[in-house]
């Protein structure tokens, strides 16, 4: 109680200490007609059996005042109950609110690495699958913490459709259903069960997701977490058994393909991006991946840029190359230096004329500098190419084309 605190606005007087309250009986005023303790209740007479059954509630101060009095009365006469009462009261002292100690997500990697150094695994997880392993574990830890109602919090999935930002409304559970269905593309490639029971004409990530949402009779709930987590564990386990050589297996995405090793990186990237969407929706903090994993994701984006540029050019969305014809494969062409700053960053030289052209430092026509997380936000379609905070110098059109190509890597 802060009744003895000095009154801040009353500086002429010494701190006012309230006088003890006088008992109402001493004031001469009439007693209130109803107070909680009056009239005194008749003492409860309860049998030993009933009193003993009350001991737990009594120890927790969860019995009525009359019952409490009756129990305490009884404890003076009954040794057995007194012993138990003492024991249960002590047990109450051991209860404490659950600590909301979030495990540091980086601890997982440190612990696993320490173990694997002490005893090298006979069946290791390929290095290209560890970002997916880490990101799914991180997302699962976030899901562990969120309440039932938060699973229905609205989330807007955002991406860039080639020309402008697009979005689709769903819920937290809907996002996990989306991840489950698209990860399912990799599962099918590896011969695991497809989480999507219906067929789609073109099994693109978006078509599969829409089909999954449609096929469900009820909006997805937190029950989607189990299947998603089981599948992600199975994917890691299966690629470990398949071995590093399986990284070249093609994974079809409906309208394009990625080799398994890139596909697993892509799924790690998507898992992070959507975990971020969920974290925003339920107002939790969420950190970027570890620098090593972030670097691998940026590298994938940088490697996908030349074909994304070519596709945009074919669709008439990007300026034609230097010559109307593609530069012959394997010859040096105009290049853009992509400098990614921050943890996980690096430098990439992007060939601009065709996916087959060699990037060449001698033919560098432009330089773009971006923060690593900003580049990922751009490639996820969460930041528009016009708004991406990028330092730039050189050929403006080439820069614009590359930034738009980066944004068009995004999809639902």
């Amino acid at each position, binding site marked *: 109680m802060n009744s003895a605190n000095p009154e801040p606005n009353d500086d002429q007087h010494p701190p006012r200490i309230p006088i003890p309250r006088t008992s109402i009986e001493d004031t001469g005023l009439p007693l209130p007609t109803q107070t909680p303790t009056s009239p005194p209740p008749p003492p409860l007479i309860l049998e030993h059996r009933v009193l003993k059954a009350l001991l*737990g509630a009594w120890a927790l101060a969860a019995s*009525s005042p009359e019952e409490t009095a009756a129990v305490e009365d009884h404890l003076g006469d009954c040794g057995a109950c007194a012993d138990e009462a003492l024991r249960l009261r002590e047990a109450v002292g051991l209860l404490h609110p659950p600590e909301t*100690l979030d495990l540091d997500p980086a*601890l997982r990697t440190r612990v696993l690495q320490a173990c694997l150094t002490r005893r090298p695994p006979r069946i290791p997880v390929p290095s290209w699958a560890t970002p997916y392993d880490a990101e799914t574990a991180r997302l699962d830890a976030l899901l562990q913490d969120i309440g039932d109602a938060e699973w229905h919090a609205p989330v807007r999935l955002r991406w860039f459709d080639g020309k402008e930002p697009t979005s689709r409304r769903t819920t937290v559970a809907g996002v996990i259903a989306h991840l489950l269905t698209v990860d399912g593309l990799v599962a099918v490639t590896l011969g695991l069960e497809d989480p999507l029971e219906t067929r789609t004409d073109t099994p693109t990530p978006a078509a599969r997701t829409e089909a999954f949402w449609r096929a469900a009779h009820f909006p997805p709930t937190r029950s989607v977490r189990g299947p998603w987590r089981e599948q992600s564990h199975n994917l890691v386990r299966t690629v470990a058994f398949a071995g590093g050589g399986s990284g070249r297996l093609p994974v079809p995405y409906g309208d394009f393909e990625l080799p398994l090793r890139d596909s697993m990186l892509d799924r790690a990237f998507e898992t992070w991006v959507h975990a971020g969407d969920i974290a925003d929706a339920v107002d939790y903090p969420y950190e970027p991946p570890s620098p090593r994993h972030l670097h691998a994701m940026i590298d994938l984006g940088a490697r996908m840029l030349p074909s994304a540029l070519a596709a945009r050019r074919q669709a008439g969305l990007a300026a034609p190359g230097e010559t109307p014809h593609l530069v012959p494969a394997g010859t040096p062409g105009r290049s853009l230096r992509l400098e990614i700053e921050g943890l996980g960053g690096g430098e990439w030289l992007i060939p601009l004329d065709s996916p087959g052209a060699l990037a060449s430092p001698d033919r560098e026509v432009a330089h773009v500098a971006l923060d690593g997380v900003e580049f990922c936000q751009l490639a996820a379609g969460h930041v528009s190419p016009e708004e991406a905070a990028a330092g730039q110098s050189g050929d403006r059109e080439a820069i614009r084309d590359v930034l738009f190509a980066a944004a068009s890597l995004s999809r639902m």
Partner: protein
Amino acid sequence: MARRDTPPRWDRKMQQRLARGEAAALGELYDRFASLVHGLAHRVLGDEHAADAITREVFARVWENPESYDPKQGPLRSWVATLTHRLAVQRLRTTETAALAQDGTDDTDELERKVRRASVAARADYIVTSMPTPLRTALELAYFQRRDYRQTAADLGVTADEARRRLRLGLQLLSTAHDTPGTPPAQGGTR
């Protein structure tokens, strides 16, 4: 948490996979038990850094010697909890002894009291997380939500008698945290 496999089956398969040297199994083991291990270690040691170190040590031991777990002796979860408890108490005793030596005092009674207190608190945590859900829920309502047992009964949709029974049984289980390890857990029945 989804529990697709019944625990004994999951435990047995996990042990076989660890013995086979599957790194992916180690990841799954961590995902299932890391918060239990870290939480117990933190309860004993009261220090994030020390709890991290115990977590590392527990998983390394299981990974290095998966055959030291015998599925017939009980669930993997309680085996992991026991291992964590032992390593954490050991570490507490070591660091406290070192601290005493540095102070030049030799108050072993105080040391033992501290170790015992930490040990009981960690055992209590484990008991609470492992007790049947109806008992835990009743305790949570009565203790944390400050509901009396009649309100607790109404919240749970059970009779007042049943609510009283759950509260008493829950506390009886919890009170076994004070028993020294090695004594059988309380029967949970009435006297």
